[in-house]
């Protein structure tokens, strides 16, 4: 179970060059990486994340490069979960494989209804996202066992299949 307030970007196809530009891929200090998170789309990202932990964005989130710096930068900026109608595959696996944050696929109706600032609760066990602010809830596709298994293990490197 995870609870937090949402920061929402309406755009589809938010790519990894926007999440963390190539010029910062030489940085190994994760806190410094975080200072540049999303700067291509919103220089005020850090201010907006204050007191919030859920990022909501349009479809095909994280398309582009395989840089694991992208979920690291978001995670270190306080993002515990990203909710989007769909994710680019490498980004999705990077979030999970490093156990940085939880990527959650939500329906288009849920995406439309969630408004910036809404308080949300992600219930993985029940495959539901509850919008506490609006008193509604949305069904989400069940998260595959292997994904929850990797996150529980603390990342792919520690994961052992049952």
């Amino acid at each position, binding site marked *: 179970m995870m609870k937090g307030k949402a920061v929402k970007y309406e755009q589809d196809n938010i790519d990894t060059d*926007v999440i963390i530009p190539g010029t910062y891929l*030489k940085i190994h200090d994760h806190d410094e990486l975080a200072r540049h998170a999303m700067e291509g789309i919103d220089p005020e990202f850090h201010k907006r994340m204050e007191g919030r932990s859920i990022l909501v964005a349009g479809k095909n989130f994280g398309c582009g490069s395989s*840089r694991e710096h992208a979920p690291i930068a978001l995670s270190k900026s306080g993002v515990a979960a990203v909710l989007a109608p769909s994710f680019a595959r490498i980004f999705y696996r990077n979030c999970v494989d490093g156990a940085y944050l939880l990527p959650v696929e939500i329906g288009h109706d849920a995406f439309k209804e969630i408004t910036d600032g809404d308080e949300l609760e992600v219930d993985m066990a029940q495959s539901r996202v509850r919008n506490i602010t609006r008193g509604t809830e949305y069904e989400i596709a069940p998260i595959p066992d292997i994904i929850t298994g990797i996150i529980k293990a603390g990342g*792919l490197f520690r994961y052992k299949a049952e």
Partner: protein
Amino acid sequence: MAGKRPRTLFGKVWDSHIVAKRPDGAALIYIDRHFIHEVTTPQAFASLHASSRRVRRPDLTTATVDHNVPTTDRSLPILDNTSATQIQALESNCAEHGIPLYGIHSDRQGIVHVIGPELGLTLPGSTIVCGDSHTSTHGAFGALALGIGTSEVAHVLATQTLWLEPPKETRMVFEGALVAHTVTPKDMVLAMIRKIGTGGGRGTVIEYTGSAITGLSMEGRMTICNMSIEAGARAGMVAPDETTFEYVRGRQHTPPDIEEQIAEWRSTLHTDPDAEFSRSHTLDASSLAPQASWGTDPAMTCDITDAVPTPQDYGDGDQKKSESAQRALEYMGLEPGTPMQDIRPDRVFIGSCTNARLGDLLEAALVVRGRHVADGVRAMVVPGSQDVKRRAEEAGLDKVFQDAGFEWRESGCSMCLGMNDDILGAGERCASTSNRNFEGRQGARGRTHLMSPISAAAAAIAGHFVDVRRCELVEAV
């Protein structure tokens, strides 16, 4: 075989590499070849060291430096300390684990997706991974080639395997044949992404088939598979044929039993006639015009003979698409209705894992030979590898480009992703042969137009985008 379920090319490669399977369908896949580079590996080696593990198969691992290396004089020290540190980290990790490294001074150094095939390390029917999204390039050989993240790199270093969820499959048929020289594989793949969208291949492996694919060189097939990721696909593949087999013979690392392997590949590595795909698309290559992007994702592309679309036309009733086009046009500093051929680049970049092989440079030279870069345009050629550079120089291309006012650089990823000094300034507009036109990709506030090498070269000469079908082509004498 009677009664046997028909399988796709992908299905055959996948099935033959399963080490273990979970009830939910995820499989532990054996990895035949792991390419590594300086940017996505430091953390992976750190994970390995923290758990006192060794690289399981250094002999199946190959390293080079490409992403952040300078493309200027290599006899000089690297001025950027953070780049130098990443390069040194890879050197020491490779030395410690016995991994062959084609380092900064190697005569085989180059972009990882260019040197793998050149060295004979990219083989049909194999599984290949690399911590780089454009690993899809190697699918041109009928390999299953996947871009992975750093945590997965660590897993492969330690175990030579990877947990993967089985993808769905898309068939992309290119019928007809290209207009020779002036309409290129880059135009095919841009036209495809324009048609199916940047999410059109999401979650799938795309198999490229049809007469326009089988008619291509290996280099052309690599260009197309390279940009599969730009359609959201997990990988791209082309069934190997005689063109493929001819390419893999006689290279530095070609296996000694290559002829036996070719015989096996010839009989197995193709999609069975009744195999099913979850999606299928068709495009006629013979009717394609040269393509160029106008926006900030590769689907925002049009014919070079078109005008920049209005957001409404691009959106075609989809409000969000119109809004994204509006934002893209503002970022790109373009007015709807402007003929594409009126757009004037400040910079021209011929390079990247998409389009920096010898054939690309030979085609670009067709419109450069005996001409000069237009005033106000700064143009550069960055060969994909030291081998490409050497062979290009043997063909006199360095002179052709330099006489025309192009810079002739050392090999690396360079301005494709703006990790070294080769970047666009704010507001600069670039005709680029690379693969991504995302905001800030080639430098903060830089503006990228994706196109083929010959179209980019022609833009450098004319000072504006041109329809290369109308250019006079000058062959070498």
